[in-house]
């Protein structure tokens, strides 16, 4: 059953962080929607604003940050809402999994208590019932000895185990949306593989929608059906993942894909995107990628950040959105 209204609708979201160097506009003009049970990837490099945009959805930004725009979840507005009204949604309807499993758990409290806590505060369960369910959740995330782990402290578990615990915690109240902020970045490849499989299965079983933030395009490719690409605080391209990766319509997406080292196919020398990220306090006008772009022209300096339609499902903020990228982009760009 596809409802007319998406589960989550983000429009014109902008986040300003306060840093010692002054206010920093970490993300702006971010608009996208997520349907029920859909898995969306949000990719970008350092400073792209992807994590900040994600945290803005749940109001979990650092102190002094300001948010504008709108985030509508199941018909309710989440931006500009008091903590008191957001708290019942967090962990119950929208849950979040963070990047670093080594620090994301309270080091001085037992695993069982930390999982049970979300059930107790969100569903009002008593200690015994919460604890019994916590055991069940640990079994569901394939932890071998749930009873023992319940009594353990975080430092007694490996990184992969801790990430499983965090996933169990995120699944506890059967949320409708799970936000994953680089949940496998800190893990080894083989552990990452297991965690990804677990996440895939968990979202299938629960029917929860998922936004998966990552710098790793391949990981997103594995897990998601649609992808959003961010660069320097703005959304630059979005669409179904297959077409976007096969025929990117934004010069940045194309350059990023080219710079990925491949594990199979013919061996190729490293290809980099020339230049450095723009100064985050004084970004260039128009398209922010134009200073590093090989297919930019004069019109890029005044290009609005609006996504231009590529086809019915896709959009790109590039001058080449409709026509496709010129070939010279594929050859040059090799630089040091």
């Amino acid at each position: 059953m596809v409802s007319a209204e998406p589960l989550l609708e983000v429009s014109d979201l902008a986040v300003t962080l306060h840093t010692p160097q002054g206010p920093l506009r970490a993300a702006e003009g971010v608009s996208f929607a997520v349907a029920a049970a859909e898995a969306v990837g949000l990719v970008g490099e350092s400073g792209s604003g992807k994590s900040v945009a994600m945290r803005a959805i749940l109001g979990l930004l650092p102190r002094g940050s300001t948010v504008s725009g709108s985030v509508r979840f199941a018909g309710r507005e989440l931006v500009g809402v008091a903590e008191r009204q957001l708290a019942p949604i967090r962990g119950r309807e929208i849950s979040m999994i963070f990047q670093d499993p080594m620090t994301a758990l309270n080091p001085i409290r037992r695993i069982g208590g930390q999982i049970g806590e979300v059930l107790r505060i969100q569903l009002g369960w008593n200690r015994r019932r919460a604890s019994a369910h916590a055991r069940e959740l640990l079994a569901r995330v394939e932890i071998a000895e749930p009873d023992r782990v319940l009594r353990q402290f975080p430092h007694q578990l490996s990184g992969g185990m801790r990430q499983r615990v965090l996933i169990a915690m995120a699944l506890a109240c059967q949320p409708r949306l799970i936000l994953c902020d680089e949940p496998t970045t800190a893990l080894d490849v083989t552990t990452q593989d297991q965690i990804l499989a677990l996440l895939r299965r968990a979202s299938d079983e629960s029917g929860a929608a998922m936004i998966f933030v990552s710098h790793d395009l391949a990981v997103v490719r594995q897990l998601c059906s649609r992808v959003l690409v961010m660069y320097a605080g703005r959304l630059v391209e979005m669409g179904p993942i297959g077409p976007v990766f096969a025929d990117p319509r934004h010069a940045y997406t194309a350059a990023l894909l080219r710079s990925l080292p491949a594990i199979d196919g013919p061996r190729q020398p490293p290809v980099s995107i020339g230049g450095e990220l723009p100064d985050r306090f004084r970004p260039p006008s128009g398209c922010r990628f134009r200073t590093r772009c090989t297919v930019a022209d004069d019109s890029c300096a005044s290009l609005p950040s609006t996504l231009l339609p590529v086809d019915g499902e896709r959009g790109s903020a590039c001058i080449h959105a409709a026509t496709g990228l010129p070939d010279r982009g594929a050859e040059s760009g090799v630089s040091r």
Partner: protein
Amino acid sequence: MSTVETAIVAEPAGAEEPRGRRRRSVALIVGTSIVGTYILAAVLAPWLAPYDPLAQDVPNALAAPSGSHPLGTDHLGRDVLSRLLHGSRVDLLLGMAAAGAAGVLGTVLGLVAGYAGRSVDVVVTRVMDVVQALPGIVLLLVLLLVLGPGAGSIIAALALTGWVAYARLVRASVLVVRDQDFTSAARLAGLGHPRVLFRHVLPNVWIQGVIYMTSDIVIIIGAIAALGYLGIGIQAPTPEWGQMIYDGQAFLASHWWLSAAPGLAIVVLGLGLALVSDALTDRARR
């Protein structure tokens, strides 16, 4: 790989207070002005003071503040303002000398202990533990018994008591710096230990000692004043703030300002130094 992003998300100081930076530089200016004023007062005391701080005028004892004696006179008829100004020479000079000696001693020992590691570190750490197991004032008294009375003894005793804090601080910073890759890189580049220690480690840790010194001077001046108050510090007629507080306490009910004024002198100096220290800490963190 949002290392930059998380760095910003986790950024504590600036994120919490947008206007913090300007206020902190104001704090630095205010702090330095206060401390500067004290130093000036100490240097210029003979010219600034209206009377000889030692001149007694017994008929005129315990006079209330007036035009001729802005802070009144003490029980021997000495001008309190003049004694206060001259006192700044004694307390400030002794305080800075003792803090300096403690700072140098502690920094060197902390540097060596942290960098050398192993047995040297164990020995220095044990000595630090022993010294810190005694309350400062107790060790101070024991040392003064051994060293005898006099300003030199007081400086030496304070330095021998106070070095531990510097040593701990510097040692901890050295341990952090020693584990950084640039120290390993310097060693791998075939640079000798003295060069690595003084050119690569010291420039990254000495500021910690200096910052602590700004607040330590207050603590040490408090200790000097405490000795004066207990009657075992700088000997009697020399003007000294602690001694002045003690002398005034007998007349607290009727002449409270006799004790209040020298105490306030210490408090304001402490405030100035604390402001400087805070501002420096902030700079160093960035």
